[in-house]
């Protein structure tokens, strides 16, 4: 069975500073990794994915994530955070022939002006 851990419930940063949201995973086989963001009273919005290839993945709104197979991690990063990045972030994993996403518990990001 696959699982995802997001070790930080909350991340607080100042606007303009780098933002990192941590994610580690556990799977049998190759992982397919995703990051989603959720704003209040909204559904999940897709940010980026890692399927294969380059370990550094670039996504929407200036976000990127680095896949590290040896550390089984897929941390989300943004070089310069905006107040509008304040939201709930979810890391998710799926494996070949399993259609469902398994989500982490989520990390609440607060960017202060």
């Amino acid at each position, binding site marked *: 069975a696959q699982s995802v851990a997001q070790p930080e419930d909350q991340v607080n940063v100042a606007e303009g500073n780098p933002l990192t949201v941590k994610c580690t995973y556990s799977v049998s086989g190759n992982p397919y990794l995703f990051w989603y963001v959720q704003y209040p009273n909204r559904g999940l919005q897709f940010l980026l994915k890692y399927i294969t290839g380059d370990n550094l993945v670039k996504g929407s709104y200036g976000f990127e994530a680095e896949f590290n197979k040896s550390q089984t991690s897929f941390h989300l990063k943004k070089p310069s955070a905006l107040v509008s990045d304040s939201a709930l972030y979810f890391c998710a994993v799926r494996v070949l022939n399993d259609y*469902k996403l398994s989500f982490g518990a989520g990390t609440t990001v607060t960017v202060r002006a």
Partner: protein
Amino acid sequence: GAGVSQSPSNKVTEKGKDVELRCDPISGHTALYWYRQSLGQGLEFLIYFQGNSAPDKSGLPSDRFSAERTGGSVSTLTIQRTQQEDSAVYLCASSPRGGMMNQPQHFGDGTRLSIL
């Protein structure tokens, strides 16, 4: 283009009543998923449809929960004899095809269900 549409956006009902939640996926998406988001359990998978068939119902928490999909499009999630622990946000997602592992799932805004 239109995204995944869910209705109602909010539903309040009394314990013991039946409820129906509706999901209209992105046009052309053959794969459809239901998830539940609650404070205590986080995001949980409920059921997956490919076309009108449901090859994976493993996440349905009890036999009070059922879902169907007709015409390869709209899906309905039905909860019978609702209990307070059913209170949650029910999210629907769709993707072009379930077996395409590189395709993300696109989510609707959910139905917030409150059981009194």
